[in-house]
């Protein structure tokens, strides 16, 4: 997020405000990645974003409110990436759709460790307001996974808790890797994660065929 030119610049107040807000959100996301939620302060965010403390409070009432906005923005960015991978496939192509969605998810997170940290690590740790958002995000991914999913190989409907556990389990695995400082290596997990997600629906053999590009 670029700083605005100093002095008279002829930019509209709305533009300046929007730019400041986006810088604060980006600033919080970076600071959070570096020092964690508890040590992230309004002054650190302001300094990183080059926005004064008084301007900070024009946009957000508290660190938490800025945090929620940053969280929503992070999830939105992830959803856009995953959504565009999904939309390359028709409704009948469930296995490749899930494969490409997971692959684009992990690639996006690996390319942006601060994004991976706020979305996966802090969602469970920053208290109830963020937890609700984390849960809603996971729920929406459960919906994506469910949509068009085939029954299990034995013909039975895959139980709802299985979808939830698949999504929650993948999020937990990725979160643990990010916490261990391995966010940049997440893309290496793509084949394992795809096999994990597809196996309950397709059986191991078919899941592996899809992993290897079938």
């Amino acid at each position: 997020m670029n700083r605005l030119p100093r002095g008279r610049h002829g930019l509209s107040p709305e533009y300046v405000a929007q730019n400041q807000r986006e810088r604060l959100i980006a600033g919080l996301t970076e600071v959070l990645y570096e020092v964690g939620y508890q040590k992230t302060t309004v002054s650190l965010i302001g300094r990183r974003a080059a926005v004064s403390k008084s301007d900070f409070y024009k946009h957000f009432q508290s660190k938490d409110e800025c945090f929620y906005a940053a969280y929503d923005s992070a999830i939105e960015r992830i959803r856009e990436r995953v959504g565009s991978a999904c939309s390359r496939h028709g409704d009948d192509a469930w296995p490749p759709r899930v494969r490409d969605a997971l692959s684009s998810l992990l690639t996006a997170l690996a390319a942006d460790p601060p994004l991976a940290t706020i979305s996966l690590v802090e969602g469970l740790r920053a208290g109830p307001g963020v937890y609700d958002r984390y849960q809603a995000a996971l729920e929406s991914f459960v919906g994506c996974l469910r949509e068009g999913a085939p029954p299990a190989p034995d013909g039975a409907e895959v139980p709802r808790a299985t979808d939830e556990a698949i999504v929650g389990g993948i999020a937990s695995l990725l979160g643990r890797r990010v916490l261990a400082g391995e966010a940049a290596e997440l893309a290496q997990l793509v084949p394992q994660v795809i096999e994990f997600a597809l196996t309950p629906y397709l059986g191991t053999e078919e899941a592996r065929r899809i992993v290897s590009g079938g």
Partner: protein
Amino acid sequence: MMDAMAELTAERGYGATKIADVVARAGVARKTLYDNFAGKEELFLAAFEAAATEAREAVKAACAEAGEGEARVEAGLAALLGFLAAHPSQARMCMVEALSASAVTSARYEAMLHEFVELLRGSAPPALGRPPTLAETLAGGVAWILQQRIRNDEAEAVGALFPELSGFVLSPYRGIGKPGC
């Protein structure tokens, strides 16, 4: 004092729990608490440790009794669900509050989850050719399901999740080409 800590954090959250409340609930003098614990975080960690150890030992004992293979994993899972249902305050303290209480407590939560990952890895049927991260992902999935129920104050009812959770955990270990679920 540790029971009082577990109950109060479960009822109000860690942030809103004051040492004065713990002392009153436990019926001990303030001095007694500080003779034993440096402060709130240390007391929380001690209570967490006691509950996590009890849960782990219950799971280990159940696994050891059950023998090998799928029965072993099922016995361990049933013991875990049984512990959580019988100790809803401890369940909430360990599975929900520990994550957000402080950086130290959330690190302790991760360590606890890791112990369960290792238990699953050690108890599960041979996982030849399965992804190396399998046990970790499965344990994380189970934890996520449990966390949501516990957060909704449904810890007592987690036993009902046994059929779905055991199917989820065991399906990836079943033979290649066989039905996955």
